[in-house]
């Protein structure tokens, strides 16, 4: 095997074999990034303008798209850093592990949108005098919609690293730094990539809903695609609405093609399996990047020259350290300081919770009854939407899954559709509903469906594809009736996948309820009875006690649904219906 060891400085110039358009492309990217940073910086640092006027012009769309994309990107990067730190802390600190994971579980179940008002108010107060305050409020909100599943994924990856790999790292005396880059990060990469896709989709969902909102007597409206869609809908500008939605879809598809697919294809090398699988996701973009020598060698060289000294320093720092036993006993008596800290935290939390409960005193019995009725209505609606989704996606998904050629085409499309934020379509549906004269009661179910059915569809397709063909052949060999085929082969086969899809869809539906049950269209307010509507109404009127109670209710319902129903079904799926041994 021939190896080239070229010196860093001279080689790239001498071996310029890549096409010119790549140079031009790289330069253009650089310029664009520079311009965006300068522009965003100026915008953020200006005095706050809560209601930025939104133009209907299609020419304004690229700028709005850029604002929204930057918000998503920042929120995502924050999420990633936070998720990795959180997962790392939880995985390696048994003292707080159980608490941190329970917190994750609950935070994941709370509908983010009901946090909008307090978060924005807090950020505005924290960064007064700049637009950055409002912006950060919105970004933080998107962040809370993205971060939990990433953190959970990273944590789970760390906890499932095979013991012998950790032992190898330990016996070969890896520094924490080397362990992180050569074991933990690679092991977690695939999970992080897939969860990033889900996260960013969730980010779009939240972004479009929260770029524009009213809170008591204060209105906020930030330049971006969400505001554009909502104002277009309010003024009945169907053309603008159409172009706005097209832009959203374009961005989602472009992200999929330019970012996720190359990332998935690249992350294939982190697959922890013993044999090479023949099924691979291919990405032309990644192939192009791989073929371009400058993009291959330059970053690697720069990276090497940065990381070598770091590795060296970490190695030197722990050169004479003994091996750390992996089962180091952590249950030594906690120090006094830790006790004091724990007591202080507990006291603070207790006081805060008490204050929160005091807020609830102001709620009348009538309000409470309304809230409970709303909870019931929303509960029914969420489950109705799940049921409808399941009813149509199971037959369709199985039919597609059993036809590999069709599946190869439909699967990615379903995945993209699931990433298109349903919130973008709400305005159009609303206009339709108003025209047809239907109420939001039924309409909101349609709105939930819009967001949730795709998750179930692509999971069912995956499930059907995973049913081994020999089992299917056996079924036809023994001349199973259609009923037998479904009950003994297909339904058990797709069950685990179906449950996975339904859990995700259920979370999405609860989240969507906040948006779907209550809407402004122009100066009309459409609403129906439901917890989501009550959350929105409370936000509009600035009734924090009601908002708090409604949020608590909705969280309670989601958490108990997860614990009592989904988790059990999931366990059942894991144990009884697993096809691979």
């Amino acid at each position, binding site marked *: *095997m021939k190896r080239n060891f070229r010196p860093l400085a001279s080689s790239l110039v001498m071996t310029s074999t890549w096409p010119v358009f790549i140079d031009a492309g790289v330069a253009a990217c650089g310029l664009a990034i520079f311009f965006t940073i300068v522009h965003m910086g100026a915008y953020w640092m200006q005095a706050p303008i809560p209601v930025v006027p939104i133009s209907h012009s299609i020419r304004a769309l690229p700028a709005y798209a850029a604002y929204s994309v930057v918000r998503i990107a920042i929120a995502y990067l924050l999420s990633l850093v936070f998720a990795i730190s959180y997962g790392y802390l939880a995985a390696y600190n048994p003292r707080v592990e159980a608490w941190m994971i329970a917190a994750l579980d609950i935070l994941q179940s709370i509908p983010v949108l009901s946090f909008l008002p307090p978060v924005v108010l807090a950020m505005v107060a924290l960064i007064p005098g700049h637009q950055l305050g409002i912006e950060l409020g919105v970004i933080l909100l998107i962040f809370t919609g993205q971060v939990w599943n990433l953190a959970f994924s990273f944590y789970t990856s760390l906890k499932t690293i*095979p013991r*012998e*790999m950790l*032992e*190898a790292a*330990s*016996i*070969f*005396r*890896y*520094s924490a730094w*080397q362990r992180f880059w*050569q*074991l933990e990060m*690679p092991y977690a990469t695939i999970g992080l990539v897939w969860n990033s896709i889900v996260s960013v989709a969730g980010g779009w969902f939240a972004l479009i809903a929260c770029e524009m909102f009213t809170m008591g007597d204060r209105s906020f409206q930030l330049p971006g695609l969400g505001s554009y869609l909502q104002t277009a809908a309010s003024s009945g500008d169907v053309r603008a609405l159409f172009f706005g939605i097209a832009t959203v879809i374009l961005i989602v598809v472009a992200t999929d093609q330019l970012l996720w697919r190359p990332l998935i294809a690249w992350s294939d*090398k*982190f*697959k*922890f*399996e*013993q*044999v*090479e699988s023949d099924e691979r996701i291919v990405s032309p973009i990644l192939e192009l990047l791989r073929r371009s020598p400058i993009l291959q060698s330059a970053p690697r060289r720069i990276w*090497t020259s940065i990381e*070598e000294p770091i*590795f*060296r320093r970490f*190695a*030197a720092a722990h*050169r*004479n*350290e*003994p*091996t750390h*036993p*992996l*089962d*180091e*006993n952590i249950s030594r008596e906690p120090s006094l300081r830790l006790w004091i800290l724990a007591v202080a935290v507990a006291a603070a939390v207790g006081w805060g919770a008490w204050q929160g409960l005091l807020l609830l005193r102001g709620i009348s019995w009538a309000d409470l009854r309304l809230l409970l009725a709303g909870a019931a209505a929303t509960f029914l609606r969420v489950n109705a939407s799940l049921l409808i989704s399941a009813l149509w996606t199971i037959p369709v998904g199985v039919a597609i899954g059993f036809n590999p050629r069709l599946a190869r085409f439909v699967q990615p499309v379903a995945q993209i559709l699931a990433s298109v934020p349903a919130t973008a379509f709400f305005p159009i549906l609303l206009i339709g509903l108003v025209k047809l004269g239907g109420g939001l009661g039924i309409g909101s179910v349609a709105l939930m469906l819009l967001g949730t059915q795709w998750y179930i569809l692509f999971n069912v397709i995956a499930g059907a594809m995973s049913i081994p063909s020999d089992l299917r052949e056996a079924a036809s060999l023994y001349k199973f009736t259609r009923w037998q085929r479904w009950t003994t082969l297909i339904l058990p086969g797709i069950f685990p996948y179906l449950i996975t899809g339904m859990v995700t869809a259920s979370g999405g539906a609860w989240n969507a309820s906040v948006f779907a049950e209550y809407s402004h269209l122009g100066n009309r307010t459409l609403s129906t009875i439901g917890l989501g509507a009550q959350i929105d109404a409370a936000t509009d009127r600035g009734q924090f006690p009601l908002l708090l109670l409604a949020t608590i209710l909705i969280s309670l319902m989601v958490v108990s649904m997860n614990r009592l129903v989904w988790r059990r079904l999931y366990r059942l799926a894991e144990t009884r219906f697993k096809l691979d041994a």
Partner: protein
Amino acid sequence: MLPLAQSKLHFFSLLSSWGYPMSNSVISTVRTIPESAAPETLQPIIRAERIEKYYAQPSQNRIQVISPTDLSIVPGEILALLGPSGSGKSTMLRMLSGLSRPSAGQVYWHGRPIAESAINVSIVFQSFALFPWLTVQENVEAPLRARGLDADERRERSLRMLDTVGLDGFEAAYPKELSGGMRQRVGFARALVVEPEVLFMDEPFSALDVLTAENLRSELLELWSRKTMPTKAVFLVTHNIEEAVLLADRIIVLGRNPGHIRTDFRVQLAHPRDRKSEPFTQLVDYIYKVLTRPEVAPLAAPDQSTGKPPRDQRQMHYQMLPHARPGGVAGLLELLIDKGGKDDIYRLADDLAFEIDDLLPIVDAAQLLGFLIVEEGDAAITPSGTAFANSEILRQKELFRAAALEHVLLLRQIRRALETKNDHTVPEEFFLDMLDEQFSEDESLRQVETAVNWGRYAELFDFDAARRRFILPEEPEPAVPIEDAE
């Protein structure tokens, strides 16, 4: 299995150079070895003093996995730890290597507590534990990087190591592109590249197929005996009795519930060790008995001095005839040709819906006849094998006859005896007596049975089952081997 034969000579000469008594006079004792049994002047590298291990149980208080145990690893020895599943072999290995802290007792590294020493050991894992996202070379370089070596030195040392374990040219491959045997070679390279003082191995060969395991074992012995690695001691966990007796200088057998040492003795068989020799089989039987009767206190290990001196390598002795039918060999070769001439043995067994144990004799037979070669768990057909498989039935018999006479001593002897004798018959007993020297009685009978099978097919001779005599067929075939098809 050529490498084994080569390495045996090295190992033999080196053992004596370490100052091991090569006379067979030392008798092992049970449970405790007086320190003097080990070569004096040697301080243990690792010494465990009354180490115990408990695991916390959610239901009960805790379960004891290892009861208080003393154990030392001294330079110059391969120490094998045997025991039933769940007896705590891996737990013991982890405590001795510093990966796991004993619940009580202390492990010392050159006299200092191991928890305070920078130790230099490596582990070879049963599951290989390679990082799939790193190339072979990066995997081997990783431990060097952890020690702060610069890029050039890392590259140089890792390439040299890969060369040593026979992976030259594979440095840019990823582990999942390699066969199991090659992956474990990477495991060895990674373990040895840091030049460990003690090499720990936790069932390193048990994830591999029989032939690959045999190859790797002999290569390991060769590395160890040639002192190509500065490793001073090897600690091997295994559940394979023969493997332990084949490799180890000292064997410890663990018992269960909780783990404790049941017997601890030296193996004084000279290398190369002959699996068929009396002392070898006696030792294997002895360990087998200890393992299968956990309630009986073990006797002393058998005296290993009664054995004959190791067989002269040049002395002719019978190969073990694999119990396979010629038709099976032809079938296997035809399948191999369909597969492009080469395939993984396990995959072949799968395709044939054979148990691997049923396929192996056929593979061995084909290999013995020179029709195929086995490498890294892959069977590859040879030119003569191709010629054999592609011929029609009569020609096949001729080719088989030629191969059998060339490669199989027993068939050659039977044929020659028949030709020499006037009446052209020889009693079965004549050959049984010769075979009995080497095989058990039952095995000798099976050997003859297989020889008859092959001989009849090749029309070399016939067998009169009533009179138990070999006879030359009516029309004697030419005894000279027919020229191989190109």
